């Protein structure tokens, strides 16, 4: 039953994100545009480029959609409202997100176009840069909760949200989450004016519709992860818990979408270098800091 309850919320959340995205990027607020855009995409030809790797080309959009949906399954909307309350939820989230990289590389390779291929390579590098910065802040969060279960992680923040308890981890996770969603300034694999759409460049029609939907769900998933791990999830006064989760998630999404507007796209080499030179030492510092605070408080 919980699943049935969550599907409409997933749709609504995705819908709000796409409206938000157009609002923050072009300054136009058009709440009906996603409906028109989606339907018109479905009514267009879905071309298969010449000499594709057909399996990869066809499977990539689906995989990119499935990965964040799976990750979303372990994120609680409210106490008890969760599709799969795994004891290893945080770990499962990591595993599911790993397929984002696979899907993007498949899309880039499968389409047999140079732009897509370069986009795929770039995301491979991006993955190297961000992957540790997803894992290590989650490690610190799990340390505080003494559990990998996402519901326990939320409950551990009752006294103090993780964003205050471990601000460094929050910042690193936030940036890494943007990199997973390839949102600007991390939009290297789709860079519009560098790769003419990159990995998405050869997709049209319904396949493109799935790919775009998948990206939106990915943003929703990562925003929800930030909410669950650092912003206290459903915790909040007065309003029902599920509204708190939804509102926080959408605010995080809006902030993520808006940040990239004022910053130039990162260079590939800088992204990878900074990820390892600064990101990982800082993430280790964060783990150390959390460890020390836990010892002191206990």
């Amino acid at each position, binding site marked *: 039953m919980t699943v049935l309850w969550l599907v409409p919320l997933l749709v609504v959340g995705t819908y709000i994100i796409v409206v938000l995205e157009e609002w923050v990027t072009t300054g136009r607020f058009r709440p009906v545009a996603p*409906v028109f855009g989606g339907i018109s995409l479905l*009514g267009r*030809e879905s071309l298969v*480029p010449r000499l594709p790797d057909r399996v990869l080309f066809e499977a990539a959009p689906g995989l990119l959609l499935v990965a964040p949906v799976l990750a979303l399954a372990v994120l609680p909307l409210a106490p008890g409202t969760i599709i799969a309350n795994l004891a290893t939820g945080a770990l499962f989230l990591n595993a599911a997100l790993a397929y984002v990289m696979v899907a993007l590389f498949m899309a880039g390779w499968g389409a047999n176009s140079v732009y897509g291929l370069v986009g795929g390579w770039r995301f491979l590098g991006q993955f190297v840069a961000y992957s540790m910065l997803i894992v290590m802040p989650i490690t610190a969060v799990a340390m505080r909760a003494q559990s990998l279960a996402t519901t326990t992680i939320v409950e551990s923040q009752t006294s103090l949200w993780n964003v205050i308890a471990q601000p460094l981890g929050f910042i690193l996770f936030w940036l890494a989450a943007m990199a997973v969603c390839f949102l*600007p300034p991390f939009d290297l694999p789709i860079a*519009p*004016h*560098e790769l*003419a759409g990159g990995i998405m460049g050869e997709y049209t029609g319904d396949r493109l519709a799935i790919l775009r939907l998948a990206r939106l769900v990915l943003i929703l998933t990562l925003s929800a992860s930030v909410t669950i791990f650092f912003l206290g999830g459903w915790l909040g006064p007065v309003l029902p818990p599920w509204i708190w989760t939804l509102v926080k998630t959408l605010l995080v999404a809006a902030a993520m979408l808006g940040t990239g507007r004022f910053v*130039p796209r990162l260079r590939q080499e800088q992204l990878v270098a900074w990820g390892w030179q600064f990101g990982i030492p800082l993430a280790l510092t964060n783990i150390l800091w959390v460890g020390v605070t836990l010892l002191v408080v206990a």
Partner: protein
Amino acid sequence: MISGARLGIGNRVHRFVATMQARELAAFVVPGIEVARAFGLDPEAAGLRIAVSPRHADLILLVGEIPEGLAQAVAIVYAQMPRPRAIVAVGTGSNSTLPAPDVSIALNQESLVAGIAELRSLVANGSFNPDASGFDIAETRAETVYVCPMHPEIVRTEPGLCPICGMRLVPSEAANGDIHGDMSATHGREADQEAAEFANTAYTCPMHPEVVQSKPGTCPICGMTLVPRQSTTQEAGRAGHSSGPTSRDTDDNDQAGQSAPSTDHHLHSPSDRSHAHHERHDNVADRVPHDTHEQLTNHQASGDQHSMMSPDMHEMQRDPHDGAEGRHSHGGTDMHSMATMDHGAHTGMMGGFMSMVAMTKGLPRSRDGLPMEWVEAPFGPLFPGLPGGLDVAFTLDGDDVAQVRVSGAMMSRQLAQTWPGPSTTFPDRLARLDPLAPVAYRLLAFYAIEHAAGILIDPSLARQRIAALEWQRVISHLNWLAAFGAVLGDRWIAQSAAALHLRVVGSSVATGIDKFQTDLSGFIQRLGKTPLLKRRLDQVGILAEATDALGPVARANGKVVDARLEDRSYRGLDFAPVVVNSGDAHGRLQVRLGELTQSLALIQAVDVHAAQETPPIAEASGAGTATIETPRGAATLHVTLVDGRIQEVHLTAPSMRNVGFVPVVATGQEVADALVSIASLDLSPWELNR
């Protein structure tokens, strides 16, 4: 019904979808959004979204004059768009390569808005049509053939098993058209190979290159099936494909080699990779004789299979030999092996099983020493990140640019033929040269004619012209900044610059300049505070030596090169050019930002608010020369005047000079850096070829 309607019966569902499609239209702008902006068009204000890929566009928006050489590329872009698709021509003449435009309108924003409204109703009523006809061009046609992954000589029209090894044949693609004829009309690499095989085929063992026979068979040493080997001349030709830093020569070669506008240049070919190597064959004849004798002998001596190389060849590659130079000449050698390794379309030279070491054995060495497949990809002439019409092709080594080929041949409009004629209309005809800076060329024509006729211009007119020229500079720099911001991926810069540009484009020096000046300086200040911007641009697109550079490119290299210094009326204003000594993309940005402020200050100083007047031009004879500093650098015009008619014209435009720096700034860079570097040069492809 629209020209690119999708086949459909037009039932209720179709009509509903068509209504939705009419509301959401994305346009692919040709030749480029910066040209549309220069004409004062704002497609987004007209309710269009801008698509960066033809695959994601619903309509192609033709803006202004489309040079003939570009028409073929436009047709390919159109063919790549998914149906339903439409054509909107804004101030464009007839285009023989495309279907008739669905909406044809005049070149102004009001018409565009009205035209898009008209298009919406056309789309809503005609997205789906049972009578929809296809748009088919030779360049995109291909038929499928079935080949054995192991035995490339087995080519069948139907699926089945290989008669030699019994493996299942895999679908591949053969091009239509005459394989022995015009290469630009063929596409797949198979035709390429067939042509090669037809011409000169020998069979060799993949393991034992010394075994060479004229007929297929098995190797007497190991018993493997022999594979066809390409003729040595072709290999040499490929090896000799070099686009050295002196791109002027390359340009000429390209023009000579491409009698027909080559189809390999467009954005986004359906299979960019397989396609890329025709280029090499096109130009083989031009390039073999030059500098490849040594390599030629190496190849002949080795008698080696195409994807392998003799040891000394190998040695040569390892030798860095000044980075780019050494690698240049080998770029082509891998193309076939590369193509065959892709996606299981094993139709090429690789026979038998090979380890990765063997597969990469002959590949060119990158800077990091890792052998990678090099692939040539078109980044133009309709690439969204570069000025529309600039025909750039990168040979990519991974995502590094190993070689750069640039040409402006596509923009050729034979304008020089239209220039002789009455001197009174000459300024307007010359202004047609560059839609990105028409006022500058109009002024240049005035100066040259007046010099030829011996007319001295009075100070008030000179002041007016300073105002007009500086105004043009402001407009041009803002347009560049909008494009540059887009390449950088900084939407705030792109959108703000475009909005400021839209306020001033098309207007002469107006009274609202004070308010504009405030807004502009606010924008420049905020731009300077953009986080990570300096880090993004520092040390990108470095020009170590900008000898011969012109305009802001030279001034960013610390050179005081500015035609305005020679102008007496500028000297009266205590003019000193903005010079930055960094030589990279950040320096070029700084120079142009400085010039935006400076130009507005100059306009304020000359204190002219009247529109520029057309001065009378005498019925005189003589020869005259004038040089002015256009937004991109100094342009020089020589005219010969006989009884008030222009007889001879010789023009030197700054982009002709600066385009030579494209390979210098882009070679060896990552794709993004290469594109930013090229964008930072602010080239106008329109100036490249008259």
